[in-house]
């Protein structure tokens, strides 16, 4: 893969930039150019919005597969995180014992290395989630 593949997504992956429909107020992440609820009324009017990075675990799993680019992390926790702004995000939960993860657990987003494209390839960054301080 070449750099632009990852570079073009940097604002959303590094800074959680999504979009808000000015017609119905729904927030979307990742960004969308049309609101699925409002259709053409929203076209050209979607506004950028930054998520707070806060959230709660909506569902999760512990991945035991060999996954290209991730195999040195296994087993790792994947989760769907519910944010207070509305959208749900898919990401890993780190800095936690997998057996302590539960639905409803409060977490927040952190900036981390996600994967690498072989030894000489691009190192890819983005968000992961860690548990809030107890």
């Amino acid at each position, binding site marked *: 893969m070449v750099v632009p593949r990852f570079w073009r997504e940097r604002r959303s992956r590094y800074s959680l930039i999504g979009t808000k429909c000015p017609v119905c107020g729904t927030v979307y992440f*990742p960004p969308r150019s049309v609101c699925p609820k409002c259709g053409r009324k929203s076209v050209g009017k979607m506004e950028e919005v930054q998520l707070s990075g806060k959230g709660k675990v909506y569902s999760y*799993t512990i991945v035991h597969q060999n996954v290209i680019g991730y195999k040195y992390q296994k087993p790792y926790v*994947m989760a769907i995180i519910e944010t207070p702004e509305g959208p749900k995000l*898919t*990401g*890993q939960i780190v800095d936690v014992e997998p057996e302590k993860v539960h*639905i409803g657990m409060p977490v927040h987003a952190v900036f981390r290395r996600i994967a690498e494209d072989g030894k000489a390839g691009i190192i890819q960054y983005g968000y992961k989630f860690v548990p809030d301080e107890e």
Partner: protein
Amino acid sequence: MRDVAIIGAGETKYGEHWEKSLRDLAVEAGLKALEDAGIGAQDIQAIFGGNMSAGSFVGQDHVGALIADFAGLAEHKVPAIRVESACASGAAALHSGYMAVASGLYDIVLVGGVEKMTDLQGDMVTDILAGAADREWEVFFGATFPALGAMMARRYMYEYGLTKEQMALLPVIAHKHGAMNPDAHFQREVTVDQVINAPMVADPLTIMNCSPVSDGGAAVVLASADIARKYTDSPIKISASVAANDYLSLHERESLTRSPSTIEAGKKAYKMAKKEPKDIDLVEIHDAFSIIALLGIEDLGFAKKGEGIKLAEEGQLYYDGDLPYNVSGGLKAKGHPVGATGVGQVVEIVKQLRNEAGKRQVPNARVGLAHNVGGTMTSSIVHILEVM
């Protein structure tokens, strides 16, 4: 719109076919369907072929042309188009073929599905299958396809109290049926203990809650209903062919425990076929993961939300029960060569409705339903077939 019937059906055995290539599998299935219909390749007016990812699995695109060529159709200049909708590619090809005949554009069409998956190592197959999800916003962050299925299962367990032991009943039933299907990838029975103690793929899904990586091909010949009896004494009518789509990413869904696309496709299919769930004599439901099958059973109207597993506990899902389920063995035991699966489900229903299914024959089967999904139940396609 005119009525459409299936006049021939055939498939390869599903499994690890080290000796067979993509084209071998496709041509074998296609020729079996033509033989079954009693017609030659020159009678075919168009081909629609379901295939998810030959470009990634074996580096071959332009699959329609390849298959038509090696099926001997190049001399006849027959159009051949590949159709893709991830794991629902097979049903998507059937939907396309159905439209082509129903519209009156063609009278006889071959619909095929094929996937050659075992030419690559496991981690590469996992990565390709993940392409059915959102590569940039799910897969990039480490979500494999089983991980997404596992998050559906975890949420269902949280909302409805489902246990791993209960969920294991679905693969147990699928394997019981697969053991009676000589074309199934796995032809042995398994126990609940074997399912829950199998190696973990993505907690709570063990490898026995996941369909296998299989090679295989399946094909059916469609004809307009008014000429179908010229070719066969037992044409099977396609009473409904309905597709529906939802948000691509699992995290975009309001709920992880219901599939709006399956609900939509099911409702419209029942209406189109003038049938209700109680009229269905057997179902082939997409069980790529046990949890997807459970949602399918509920969202197609066979059980209330949260209560689908009761049908398994009560024994109703066996081939001699009230709702014979995945009598072929399903994706779990028959196998899941992704592009072939949706067509293969229909091949099984055709055999059942013609009373040709041998040991696993469902008594008095007149109406069957096939449910094929792509992604995390993102694309749902439902076909209802009945004896004419």
